[in-house]
């Protein structure tokens, strides 16, 4: 059952909010850490409420509000959030103070704000939304599961507006820690990450929310057709083929595959092998050179895919292979480390 995207909000390392044309002047980063370009949060939250919100909460609240404003909705019926790392800044603050102060005289605020569900529940509190509220935290599937949940809810009750999103942040601590796992590369141009030789990716972050509904309105709708996640798949190609059984598309009909290539050779080769074998006639695109690699990067990809469908064009910066096809649908084919693969299919409807 297709689910319609009524509005979107995106705060990312690119200028993805406001009225700027899509990727008009993409930001290029050196080093291995991308940082979000953030709006003035005073436009989204009263300054007296902002005081207790950490950066990731502000990002989530702002992206959620952007999506609702675009959709013309004041209060959604449900709020579903995906975040793998949760509220890292506050977790780090509380943990540090606990150790430094030997467990004495600890401020409660960072502890309260450290739980993963703080993002979604802050949005609910601000909007007085007493409906369904959920938070997923399954690493590279966190955003996809918030989408799957929204789709299930809308199947049962299409006459609802659901806010579904994916949010993750980088902090100083988290970046120094992640670096030690050896997956990043020192990089002079993030935009050329996937064109340059080298092995390694770059750290990213972002907040995306979509306002979804089970009901069409007017023409030129963009819908989420299907979403699937595969943990530790032993037969990925077969799983991808099966995915299309539940949709109204055949896999030969895919116009653009947005691949979650990262710059890490062995991950990318595996992903590309399946993509090129199954979709030889499709255009191929990439997105992690724009947003970096992080567990909910597929949320950025979904936003991007929806924008591409809305504008019926693919900027050069996204292309890896231009098959000169009309753009009516996009398959996001993401991978996160070795064991996570996911598919999100969007189309115009």
């Amino acid at each position: 059952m297709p689910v319609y995207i009524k509005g979107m909000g995106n705060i990312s390392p690119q200028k993805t909010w406001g009225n700027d044309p899509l990727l008009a002047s993409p930001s290029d980063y050196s080093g291995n850490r991308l940082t979000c370009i953030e709006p003035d949060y005073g436009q989204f939250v009263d300054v007296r409420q902002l005081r207790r919100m950490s950066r990731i909460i502000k990002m989530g609240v702002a992206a959620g509000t952007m999506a609702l404003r675009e959709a013309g909705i004041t209060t959604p019926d449900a709020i579903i959030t995906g975040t793998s790392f949760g509220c890292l800044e506050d977790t780090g603050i509380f943990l540090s103070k606990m150790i430094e102060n030997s467990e004495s005289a600890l401020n409660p605020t960072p502890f309260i704000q450290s739980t993963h569900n703080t993002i979604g529940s802050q949005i609910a509190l601000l909007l007085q939304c007493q409906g369904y509220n959920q938070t997923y935290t399954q690493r590279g599937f966190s955003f996809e599961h918030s989408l799957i949940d929204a789709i299930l809810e809308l199947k049962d009750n299409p006459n609802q507006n659901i806010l579904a999103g994916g949010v993750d942040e980088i902090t100083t601590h988290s970046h120094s820690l992640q670096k030690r796992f050896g997956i990043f590369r020192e990089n002079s141009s993030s935009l050329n990450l996937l064109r340059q030789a080298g092995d390694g990716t770059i750290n990213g972050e972002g907040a995306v929310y979509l306002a979804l509904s089970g009901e069409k309105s007017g023409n030129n709708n963009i819908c989420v057709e299907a979403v699937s996640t595969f943990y530790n798949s032993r037969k990925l190609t077969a799983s991808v083929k099966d995915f299309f059984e539940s949709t109204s598309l055949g896999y030969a009909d895919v116009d653009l595959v947005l691949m979650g290539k990262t710059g890490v050779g062995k991950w990318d080769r595996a992903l590309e092998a399946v993509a090129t074998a199954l979709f030889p006639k499709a255009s191929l695109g990439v997105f992690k050179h724009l947003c970096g690699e992080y567990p909910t990067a597929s949320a950025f990809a979904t936003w991007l895919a929806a924008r591409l469908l809305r504008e019926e064009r693919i900027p050069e910066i996204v292309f890896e292979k231009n098959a000169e096809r009309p753009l009516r649908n996009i398959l996001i084919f993401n991978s996160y480390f070795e064991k996570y693969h996911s598919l999100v299919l969007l189309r115009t409807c």
Partner: protein
Amino acid sequence: MDQLMADLKRQIIEALNLKHLKPEDIGDDQPLFVEGLGLDSIDALELIVLLQQQYNIKMANPQDGPQIFRSVKTIAEYIKTTQTA
């Protein structure tokens, strides 16, 4: 007492991240909770920590909070009383 209240106002603004306020915006007798500044139960806990960190006063019973934290003046009075005890 005036100095203590001035210090307290500054410390409260910092501890509770009330960036939109300056010390002179907080009246000595102004209610801090519910009305007035509109602080809540989490702020009350933060004030308990403030007392411990800045004034070495350990407030064992959070139930005493509403009375002590009614205004900057009542907090100052509590500090003065506890410190001379």
